[in-house]
């Protein structure tokens, strides 16, 4: 993509992020509580935890969908929580950060064709298509995620779940982003399709140096895909470590519980550990 900086530079720095949801009658829920972590350029950072642990809230704070109550999110040196800086760098932020949702069947407009979906962000940002036309650009992005031009004029409903997710990824890639925030991108897909998407992510990272925030609850995929991972529990980040270390030597009791809960596709071993799980 554009000029590559050296690996290891910190792309996203989250410092003491706190987000509280408030409801009528002064009921509040602390969704994210004092979370800090960093994502380096060219790194896939996994965020795991059960539903309601605040993973998606972090993703939405990063994407400026929610305004965090406290803390800072520094993306490429810009504090995205600061409205002034946000306005000044809006274009850069809007193009280089992209979000991929879990359920592409509801996050893609069913009345738009695939080409329109992929072209839309380019049209909004009025980027000059390097490949001549927006359509050529859309075709290129589609090819990039492993689909051919014949899909350009189809509607999301005509695609399978995996293909829809690829279109969502292609749409995100069209802006040549540097950070992809993927909020449970594979949770609603079949195993064999999950593998395709995970392979695609790996490829994007290795060949093109994208950085990812990969939110998932499937630990085996996180182990396979991510470089580092953080474990969320009740709004707090209880453990952050390189994936290998996290899986081999978990420190926090919740991480241990999480790992113990992963089913192993082997009936012999699965039966052997019955009973002594908790």
């Amino acid at each position, binding site marked *: 993509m554009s000029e590559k900086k050296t690996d290891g530079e910190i792309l996203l720095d989250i410092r003491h992020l706190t987000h509280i949801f408030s*409801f009528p009658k002064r009921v509040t829920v602390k969704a994210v509580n004092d979370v800090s972590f960093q994502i380096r350029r060219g790194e896939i950072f996994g965020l795991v935890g059960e539903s309601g642990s605040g993973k998606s*809230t972090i993703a*939405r704070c990063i994407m400026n969908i929610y305004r965090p109550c406290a803390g800072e999110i520094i993306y490429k040196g810009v504090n995205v929580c600061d409205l002034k800086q946000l306005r000044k760098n809006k274009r850069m932020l809007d193009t280089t950060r992209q979000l991929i949702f879990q359920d592409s069947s509801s996050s893609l407009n069913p009345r738009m064709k695939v080409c329109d979906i992929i072209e839309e962000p380019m049209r909004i940002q009025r980027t000059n298509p390097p490949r001549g036309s927006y359509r050529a650009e859309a075709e290129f992005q589609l090819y990039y995620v492993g689909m051919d031009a014949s899909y350009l004029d189809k509607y999301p409903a005509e695609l399978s779940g995996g293909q829809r997710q690829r279109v969502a990824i292609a749409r995100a890639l069209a802006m040549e982003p540097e950070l992809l925030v993927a909020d449970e991108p594979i949770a609603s897909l079949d195993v064999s399709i999950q593998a395709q998407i995970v392979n695609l992510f790996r490829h994007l990272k290795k060949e093109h140096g994208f950085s990812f925030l990969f939110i998932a609850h499937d630990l085996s995929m996180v182990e396979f895909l991510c470089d580092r991972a953080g474990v969320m529990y009740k709004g707090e980040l209880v453990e952050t470590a390189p994936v290998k270390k996290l899986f081999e030597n978990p420190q926090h009791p919740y991480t241990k519980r999480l790992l113990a809960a992963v089913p192993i596709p082997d009936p012999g071993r699965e039966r052997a550990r019955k009973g002594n799980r908790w």
Partner: protein
Amino acid sequence: MVKTAGRKFLELLLSIFFLSVIIFYIARLTPGDPLISYYGERVEKMSPEERERAEERLGLNSSVSNQYLRWLADAFHGEFGISYKYKMDVTEVIGERIGNTFILGGIGFLFIFGGSLLLGILCAWYEDRLPDHMICKMGTAVSCIPEFWLSLILILIFAVNLRWLPSSGAYTIGIKRSAADRILHLILPMTVVVAGHLWYYAYMIRNLILEEVRTDYVLLAKAKGLKKRRIMFRHCLRNTFPSYLSIMAVSVPHILGGTYIVETVFSYPGLGTLIYESARYKDYNLLMFLSLMSGALVILCNMAAQVLNERIDPRIKSENMGKAPEGIGL
């Protein structure tokens, strides 16, 4: 409880206040001459001085805002002014007719409410089978018939040819008033009112129920061995009620006030004609009172629906009580 009731009442007053401002200004901004309804044809021959005097008499000579303030001050004392056309207090004009409207529209509403519920359940029960198709087709056909035409046909058949029923009025003039007489007079207009609205609501409740029938919990209810009747009434119907009540609540004033054509054709002395005429002929005071009345009715009906909904669906209550809902995107 008292506190919420008080708050609700305050909300009601506030809404009606805003409503009165909006209607007052819009009514006066639209073209038309209010004097015509008071003086009739004479207005055209008036000299400018006469006209000025006439306007002063009706209180139409100052600015709209001043007029409004005066209206508001009077309204607080229970004075809503006179109707230009009837040259009586508006409350008196309305008082004469409101009973008729409530009898026609109110009983009609009950028929529509019950009838559409019945038809809707029937359709949903026999989904995609003969009774469903028949009711839906018939509804489409009847809804296509213009109300005035249907009225005329009914008059032609039952009043002119068969002479079973009276063709107009709310009661026979000249004989002692009796309930039987009233009912006879009501049958034809009521039929038209009910036939005009029934199908739409029946179709709506059919779709509401079918929406529920497709949910997972119905599948579970079936899987646990419940009979269709119990699933339909205990589960589906109960859960469609909140939406149905809200829709019906809004439709109360619609049905009550939307009887203009019927009232005209049957010469039935109700409010429908009054609403139409007051707007058409700039009978400002009458228009204000009628609009505010229907506005208050809408709000009251909505409140009633909300109270009922809270009793049926516990989730609504807990949301209103300020408990954090589950399943928010954390």
